[in-house]
Protein backbone atom coordinates (compact mmCIF):
# COMPACT_ATOMS: atom_id res chain seq x y z
CA UNK A 1 0.00 0.00 0.00
CA UNK A 2 2.87 2.33 0.75
CA UNK A 3 4.33 1.70 -2.66
CA UNK A 4 0.98 2.25 -4.34
CA UNK A 5 0.52 5.56 -2.56
CA UNK A 6 4.04 6.59 -3.57
CA UNK A 7 3.31 5.82 -7.21
CA UNK A 8 0.04 7.74 -7.06
CA UNK A 9 1.83 10.77 -5.67
CA UNK A 10 4.51 10.53 -8.33
CA UNK A 11 1.81 10.52 -11.01
CA UNK A 12 0.20 13.58 -9.46
CA UNK A 13 3.57 15.31 -9.37
CA UNK A 14 4.02 14.64 -13.07
CA UNK A 15 0.56 16.14 -13.73
CA UNK A 16 1.41 19.26 -11.75
CA UNK A 17 4.64 19.66 -13.68
CA UNK A 18 2.61 19.50 -16.89
CA UNK A 19 0.35 22.24 -15.54
CA UNK A 20 3.37 24.26 -14.44
CA UNK A 21 4.90 24.14 -17.89
CA UNK A 22 1.60 24.74 -19.66
CA UNK A 23 -0.04 27.15 -17.25
CA UNK A 24 -1.44 30.06 -19.23
CA UNK A 25 -1.12 32.57 -16.41
CA UNK A 26 1.51 33.25 -13.83
CA UNK A 27 -0.86 32.16 -11.07
CA UNK A 28 -1.36 28.76 -12.61
CA UNK A 29 2.34 28.24 -12.37
CA UNK A 30 2.43 29.36 -8.77
CA UNK A 31 -0.44 27.02 -8.00
CA UNK A 32 1.40 24.16 -9.66
CA UNK A 33 4.53 24.89 -7.65
CA UNK A 34 2.55 25.01 -4.43
CA UNK A 35 0.80 21.74 -5.14
CA UNK A 36 4.08 20.18 -6.16
CA UNK A 37 5.52 21.24 -2.82
CA UNK A 38 2.73 19.74 -0.75
CA UNK A 39 2.95 16.53 -2.73
CA UNK A 40 6.68 16.45 -2.12
CA UNK A 41 6.06 16.64 1.60
CA UNK A 42 3.83 13.59 1.35
CA UNK A 43 6.28 11.82 -0.94
CA UNK A 44 9.18 12.31 1.44
CA UNK A 45 7.25 11.08 4.44
CA UNK A 46 6.09 8.04 2.48
CA UNK A 47 9.62 7.35 1.26
CA UNK A 48 10.87 7.48 4.82
CA UNK A 49 8.47 4.69 5.69
CA UNK A 50 9.20 2.71 2.53
CA UNK A 51 12.90 2.72 3.37
CA UNK A 52 12.32 2.12 7.03
CA UNK A 53 14.18 5.22 8.20
CA UNK A 54 11.63 7.64 9.64
CA UNK A 55 14.34 10.27 10.20
CA UNK A 56 13.27 11.62 6.84
CA UNK A 57 10.27 13.24 8.48
CA UNK A 58 12.44 16.18 9.51
CA UNK A 59 12.97 16.97 5.86
CA UNK A 60 9.25 16.83 5.24
CA UNK A 61 8.68 19.41 7.97
CA UNK A 62 11.32 21.68 6.47
CA UNK A 63 9.68 21.27 3.11
CA UNK A 64 6.28 22.24 4.39
CA UNK A 65 7.69 25.41 5.92
CA UNK A 66 9.96 26.40 3.06
CA UNK A 67 7.21 25.78 0.54
CA UNK A 68 4.93 28.18 2.39
CA UNK A 69 7.65 30.80 2.60
CA UNK A 70 8.57 30.56 -1.04
CA UNK A 71 4.97 30.73 -2.26
CA UNK A 72 4.35 33.81 -0.14
CA UNK A 73 7.59 35.28 -1.47
CA UNK A 74 6.66 34.55 -5.06
CA UNK A 75 3.29 36.22 -4.62
CA UNK A 76 4.83 39.20 -2.87
CA UNK A 77 7.56 39.86 -5.37
CA UNK A 78 5.76 38.99 -8.54
CA UNK A 79 2.99 41.48 -7.77
CA UNK A 80 4.80 44.17 -6.08
CA UNK A 81 6.88 45.70 -8.79
CA UNK A 82 6.60 46.34 -12.48
CA UNK A 83 3.88 43.80 -13.04
CA UNK A 84 0.72 45.71 -12.53
CA UNK A 85 -2.02 45.34 -15.10
CA UNK A 86 -3.10 48.76 -16.32
CA UNK A 87 -6.84 48.32 -15.89
CA UNK A 88 -6.64 47.92 -12.15
CA UNK A 89 -7.66 50.92 -10.07
CA UNK A 90 -7.64 49.97 -6.43
CA UNK A 91 -7.75 52.80 -3.96
CA UNK A 92 -4.40 52.02 -2.43
CA UNK A 93 -2.88 51.14 -5.78
CA UNK A 94 -0.81 48.51 -4.07
CA UNK A 95 -1.57 44.98 -3.31
CA UNK A 96 0.12 42.39 -1.29
CA UNK A 97 0.20 38.73 -1.42
Amino acid at each position, binding site marked *: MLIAATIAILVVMALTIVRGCMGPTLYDRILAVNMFGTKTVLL*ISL*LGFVMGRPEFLDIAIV*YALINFISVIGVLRFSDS*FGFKPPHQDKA*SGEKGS
Partner: protein
Amino acid sequence: MAMLSGIYGLLSASLFVTMDAVDVAFTEASIGAGISTLLMLTTIAMTGRTEHSVRHKPLLALAVVFVTGALLIYATLDMPYFGDVMAPANLHVMPRYIQDSMAEIGVDNIVTSVLASYRAFDTFGEVVVIFTAGIGVLALLSFARRPEDDAEISSDNISMHEQNLIVRIVSKILIPFILLFALYVQFHGDFGPGGGFQAGVIFAAAIILYAMLFGMSVARRAINQTFVQLFAAVGVLLYGMVGVVSMLNGGNFLDYNVLSEDPVAGQHLGILIIELGVGIAVATVVIIIFFNFADRIDILKHKVNKKL
Protein backbone atom coordinates in the same frame (compact mmCIF):
# COMPACT_ATOMS: atom_id res chain seq x y z
CA MET B 1 11.02 30.59 -15.40
CA ALA B 2 12.09 31.10 -11.84
CA MET B 3 9.09 29.12 -10.68
CA LEU B 4 10.25 26.17 -12.67
CA SER B 5 13.66 26.48 -11.10
CA GLY B 6 11.85 26.21 -7.77
CA ILE B 7 10.28 22.97 -8.93
CA TYR B 8 13.70 21.89 -10.04
CA GLY B 9 15.06 22.46 -6.56
CA LEU B 10 12.25 20.42 -5.04
CA LEU B 11 12.77 17.66 -7.54
CA SER B 12 16.48 17.39 -6.97
CA ALA B 13 15.92 17.33 -3.24
CA SER B 14 13.54 14.39 -3.52
CA LEU B 15 16.11 12.70 -5.72
CA PHE B 16 18.65 13.07 -2.93
CA VAL B 17 16.21 11.48 -0.52
CA THR B 18 15.94 8.43 -2.72
CA MET B 19 19.71 8.21 -2.77
CA ASP B 20 19.95 8.12 1.01
CA ALA B 21 21.60 11.49 1.34
CA VAL B 22 19.45 12.81 4.15
CA ASP B 23 21.59 15.74 5.12
CA VAL B 24 22.08 16.87 1.57
CA ALA B 25 18.35 16.63 0.89
CA PHE B 26 17.78 18.73 3.97
CA THR B 27 20.07 21.46 2.72
CA GLU B 28 18.81 21.36 -0.82
CA ALA B 29 15.24 21.50 0.45
CA SER B 30 15.81 24.71 2.29
CA ILE B 31 18.17 26.35 -0.17
CA GLY B 32 17.43 25.15 -3.66
CA ALA B 33 13.69 25.29 -3.22
CA GLY B 34 13.28 28.32 -1.03
CA ILE B 35 15.96 30.89 -0.71
CA SER B 36 17.62 30.85 -4.10
CA THR B 37 14.24 30.96 -5.86
CA LEU B 38 13.40 34.01 -3.78
CA LEU B 39 16.65 35.70 -4.70
CA MET B 40 16.04 34.98 -8.39
CA LEU B 41 12.61 36.54 -8.08
CA THR B 42 13.86 39.65 -6.36
CA THR B 43 16.41 40.09 -9.10
CA ILE B 44 13.80 39.61 -11.80
CA ALA B 45 11.57 42.10 -10.03
CA MET B 46 14.38 44.61 -10.15
CA THR B 47 15.62 44.00 -13.65
CA GLY B 48 12.22 43.69 -15.26
CA ARG B 49 10.38 40.69 -16.56
CA THR B 50 10.61 41.61 -20.18
CA GLU B 51 13.12 39.84 -22.27
CA HIS B 52 13.91 40.84 -25.82
CA SER B 53 16.84 38.74 -26.72
CA VAL B 54 17.31 37.30 -30.13
CA ARG B 55 18.58 33.78 -30.14
CA HIS B 56 21.79 34.07 -32.04
CA LYS B 57 23.83 31.24 -33.37
CA PRO B 58 22.18 28.43 -31.45
CA LEU B 59 23.72 25.99 -33.88
CA LEU B 60 27.24 26.64 -32.72
CA ALA B 61 26.22 26.34 -29.07
CA LEU B 62 24.32 23.15 -29.79
CA ALA B 63 27.30 21.69 -31.57
CA VAL B 64 29.57 22.50 -28.64
CA VAL B 65 27.08 21.02 -26.21
CA PHE B 66 26.60 17.84 -28.20
CA VAL B 67 30.30 17.23 -28.66
CA THR B 68 30.99 17.77 -24.97
CA GLY B 69 28.07 15.59 -23.99
CA ALA B 70 29.14 12.80 -26.28
CA LEU B 71 32.67 12.91 -24.90
CA LEU B 72 31.37 12.83 -21.33
CA ILE B 73 29.10 9.88 -22.07
CA TYR B 74 31.99 8.07 -23.67
CA ALA B 75 33.98 8.73 -20.51
CA THR B 76 31.22 7.29 -18.31
CA LEU B 77 31.78 3.86 -19.86
CA ASP B 78 34.79 3.52 -17.58
CA MET B 79 32.90 4.52 -14.46
CA PRO B 80 31.79 2.12 -11.74
CA TYR B 81 28.16 1.06 -11.82
CA PHE B 82 25.47 2.84 -9.91
CA GLY B 83 25.33 1.53 -6.37
CA ASP B 84 28.48 -0.55 -6.69
CA VAL B 85 29.90 -1.37 -3.27
CA MET B 86 33.36 -1.94 -4.70
CA ALA B 87 33.57 1.43 -6.46
CA PRO B 88 36.91 3.13 -5.81
CA ALA B 89 35.21 6.06 -4.09
CA ASN B 90 33.79 3.72 -1.49
CA LEU B 91 36.99 1.88 -0.64
CA HIS B 92 39.41 4.36 0.85
CA VAL B 93 38.31 6.56 3.72
CA MET B 94 34.70 5.46 3.91
CA PRO B 95 35.17 2.20 5.90
CA ARG B 96 37.23 4.07 8.44
CA TYR B 97 34.61 6.76 8.85
CA ILE B 98 31.86 4.21 9.26
CA GLN B 99 33.66 1.84 11.60
CA ASP B 100 35.70 4.17 13.76
CA SER B 101 33.73 7.38 13.95
CA MET B 102 31.55 6.10 16.79
CA ALA B 103 34.58 5.33 18.93
CA GLU B 104 36.54 8.41 17.95
CA ILE B 105 33.84 11.07 17.81
CA GLY B 106 30.87 9.54 19.53
CA VAL B 107 28.29 11.09 17.22
CA ASP B 108 25.54 9.06 15.57
CA ASN B 109 25.35 11.06 12.39
CA ILE B 110 28.47 10.23 10.41
CA VAL B 111 27.93 13.21 8.13
CA THR B 112 28.13 15.54 11.11
CA SER B 113 31.25 13.91 12.45
CA VAL B 114 33.01 14.06 9.10
CA LEU B 115 31.84 17.61 8.50
CA ALA B 116 32.71 19.03 11.86
CA SER B 117 35.63 16.94 12.98
CA TYR B 118 37.51 15.01 10.31
CA ARG B 119 37.16 17.73 7.73
CA ALA B 120 36.74 20.69 10.04
CA PHE B 121 39.39 22.77 8.34
CA ASP B 122 37.65 22.39 5.00
CA THR B 123 34.36 23.43 6.54
CA PHE B 124 36.06 26.45 8.07
CA GLY B 125 37.08 27.45 4.55
CA GLU B 126 33.51 27.10 3.33
CA VAL B 127 32.20 29.26 6.14
CA VAL B 128 34.74 31.93 5.29
CA VAL B 129 33.65 31.76 1.64
CA ILE B 130 30.03 32.29 2.67
CA PHE B 131 31.03 35.16 4.91
CA THR B 132 33.01 36.75 2.07
CA ALA B 133 30.04 36.42 -0.27
CA GLY B 134 27.91 38.16 2.32
CA ILE B 135 30.42 40.99 2.49
CA GLY B 136 30.44 41.13 -1.30
CA VAL B 137 26.67 41.49 -1.49
CA LEU B 138 26.83 44.12 1.19
CA ALA B 139 29.47 46.05 -0.74
CA LEU B 140 27.56 45.78 -4.01
CA LEU B 141 24.04 46.52 -2.90
CA SER B 142 24.01 48.50 0.31
CA PHE B 143 23.52 52.25 0.20
CA ALA B 144 23.11 55.12 2.57
CA ARG B 145 19.53 55.31 3.75
CA ARG B 146 17.83 58.62 4.15
CA PRO B 147 15.29 58.84 6.94
CA GLU B 148 12.62 60.71 4.91
CA ASP B 149 12.63 57.99 2.24
CA ASP B 150 12.27 55.46 4.99
CA ALA B 151 9.17 57.12 6.37
CA GLU B 152 7.48 57.26 2.98
CA ILE B 153 8.34 53.68 2.18
CA SER B 154 6.95 52.51 5.46
CA SER B 155 3.70 54.36 4.82
CA ASP B 156 3.55 52.64 1.42
CA ASN B 157 4.10 49.35 3.11
CA ILE B 158 1.49 49.90 5.77
CA SER B 159 -1.25 50.49 3.23
CA MET B 160 -0.16 47.34 1.49
CA HIS B 161 0.01 45.20 4.55
CA GLU B 162 -3.38 46.07 5.88
CA GLN B 163 -4.78 43.99 3.07
CA ASN B 164 -3.47 40.55 3.78
CA LEU B 165 -4.59 40.03 7.31
CA ILE B 166 -5.05 36.26 7.17
CA VAL B 167 -1.60 35.49 5.88
CA ARG B 168 -0.09 37.75 8.47
CA ILE B 169 -1.88 36.14 11.37
CA VAL B 170 -1.08 32.61 10.24
CA SER B 171 2.55 33.60 9.77
CA LYS B 172 2.60 35.11 13.22
CA ILE B 173 1.58 31.74 14.56
CA LEU B 174 4.06 29.88 12.40
CA ILE B 175 7.18 32.00 12.85
CA PRO B 176 7.89 30.94 16.46
CA PHE B 177 7.52 27.31 15.37
CA ILE B 178 9.96 27.82 12.55
CA LEU B 179 12.50 29.42 14.86
CA LEU B 180 12.07 26.62 17.38
CA PHE B 181 12.43 24.04 14.66
CA ALA B 182 15.61 25.72 13.49
CA LEU B 183 17.05 25.40 16.98
CA TYR B 184 15.98 21.75 17.06
CA VAL B 185 17.76 21.12 13.77
CA GLN B 186 20.82 22.94 15.07
CA PHE B 187 21.23 20.92 18.23
CA HIS B 188 19.83 17.64 16.98
CA GLY B 189 22.42 17.46 14.21
CA ASP B 190 24.47 14.99 16.24
CA PHE B 191 21.74 12.36 16.21
CA GLY B 192 19.64 12.94 13.13
CA PRO B 193 19.88 14.86 9.91
CA GLY B 194 20.65 18.49 10.50
CA GLY B 195 23.37 20.80 11.63
CA GLY B 196 24.54 24.34 11.48
CA PHE B 197 24.14 24.96 7.77
CA GLN B 198 20.54 23.81 7.59
CA ALA B 199 19.55 25.42 10.86
CA GLY B 200 21.03 28.73 9.78
CA VAL B 201 19.06 28.73 6.57
CA ILE B 202 15.79 27.79 8.29
CA PHE B 203 16.30 30.48 10.92
CA ALA B 204 16.96 33.03 8.21
CA ALA B 205 13.90 31.83 6.31
CA ALA B 206 11.69 32.62 9.30
CA ILE B 207 13.06 36.13 9.46
CA ILE B 208 12.67 36.52 5.71
CA LEU B 209 9.01 35.54 6.04
CA TYR B 210 8.59 38.18 8.72
CA ALA B 211 10.29 40.81 6.59
CA MET B 212 8.20 39.99 3.55
CA LEU B 213 4.89 40.19 5.32
CA PHE B 214 5.44 43.09 7.66
CA GLY B 215 7.54 45.31 5.45
CA MET B 216 11.20 46.08 5.42
CA SER B 217 11.09 49.05 7.75
CA VAL B 218 9.30 47.11 10.48
CA ALA B 219 11.67 44.21 10.06
CA ARG B 220 14.58 46.60 10.22
CA ARG B 221 13.34 47.89 13.53
CA ALA B 222 12.94 44.37 14.87
CA ILE B 223 16.24 43.05 13.57
CA ASN B 224 19.02 45.56 13.80
CA GLN B 225 21.26 45.27 10.77
CA THR B 226 24.43 46.39 12.54
CA PHE B 227 23.80 43.68 15.06
CA VAL B 228 23.32 41.10 12.31
CA GLN B 229 26.53 42.14 10.58
CA LEU B 230 28.39 41.93 13.85
CA PHE B 231 27.04 38.44 14.43
CA ALA B 232 28.13 37.24 11.00
CA ALA B 233 31.67 38.01 12.05
CA VAL B 234 31.08 36.51 15.50
CA GLY B 235 29.99 33.22 13.93
CA VAL B 236 33.13 32.89 11.85
CA LEU B 237 35.31 33.98 14.76
CA LEU B 238 33.67 31.45 17.06
CA TYR B 239 34.65 28.72 14.65
CA GLY B 240 38.21 30.00 14.36
CA MET B 241 38.48 30.48 18.10
CA VAL B 242 37.79 26.81 18.76
CA GLY B 243 40.77 26.06 16.55
CA VAL B 244 42.95 28.57 18.38
CA VAL B 245 41.89 27.27 21.77
CA SER B 246 42.70 23.73 20.77
CA MET B 247 46.11 24.94 19.61
CA LEU B 248 46.65 26.66 22.95
CA ASN B 249 45.77 23.43 24.68
CA GLY B 250 48.56 21.70 22.84
CA GLY B 251 46.76 20.05 19.95
CA ASN B 252 46.58 20.88 16.26
CA PHE B 253 44.30 23.53 14.81
CA LEU B 254 40.71 22.34 15.30
CA ASP B 255 41.80 19.20 17.14
CA TYR B 256 39.02 18.83 19.68
CA ASN B 257 40.49 15.93 21.61
CA VAL B 258 42.36 18.34 23.84
CA LEU B 259 39.36 20.49 24.68
CA SER B 260 38.35 18.28 27.57
CA GLU B 261 39.80 15.56 29.75
CA ASP B 262 38.02 12.87 27.82
CA PRO B 263 38.68 12.92 24.05
CA VAL B 264 35.11 11.98 23.14
CA ALA B 265 33.66 14.67 25.40
CA GLY B 266 36.10 17.12 23.83
CA GLN B 267 34.89 16.11 20.39
CA HIS B 268 31.29 16.64 21.47
CA LEU B 269 32.05 20.08 22.85
CA GLY B 270 34.03 21.09 19.78
CA ILE B 271 31.36 19.93 17.35
CA LEU B 272 28.65 21.68 19.31
CA ILE B 273 30.50 24.99 19.33
CA ILE B 274 31.56 24.99 15.72
CA GLU B 275 28.09 23.98 14.56
CA LEU B 276 26.81 26.94 16.52
CA GLY B 277 29.35 29.15 14.81
CA VAL B 278 28.35 27.81 11.40
CA GLY B 279 24.68 28.30 12.20
CA ILE B 280 25.16 31.90 13.29
CA ALA B 281 27.32 32.75 10.30
CA VAL B 282 24.99 31.18 7.72
CA ALA B 283 21.83 32.65 9.24
CA THR B 284 23.23 36.15 9.43
CA VAL B 285 24.74 36.04 5.95
CA VAL B 286 21.44 34.89 4.42
CA ILE B 287 19.61 37.63 6.32
CA ILE B 288 22.11 40.23 5.11
CA ILE B 289 21.77 39.06 1.51
CA PHE B 290 17.99 39.10 1.58
CA PHE B 291 17.68 42.44 3.34
CA ASN B 292 19.95 44.12 0.84
CA PHE B 293 18.06 42.73 -2.13
CA ALA B 294 14.68 43.64 -0.68
CA ASP B 295 15.81 47.14 0.24
CA ARG B 296 16.86 47.72 -3.34
CA ILE B 297 13.39 46.73 -4.48
CA ASP B 298 11.73 49.08 -2.02
CA ILE B 299 13.90 51.99 -3.12
CA LEU B 300 13.31 51.29 -6.80
CA LYS B 301 9.57 51.03 -6.27
CA HIS B 302 9.65 54.24 -4.33
CA LYS B 303 11.46 56.03 -7.15
CA VAL B 304 8.95 54.74 -9.70
CA ASN B 305 6.06 55.86 -7.52
CA LYS B 306 7.60 59.30 -7.21
CA LYS B 307 7.96 59.62 -10.96
CA LEU B 308 4.35 58.71 -11.63
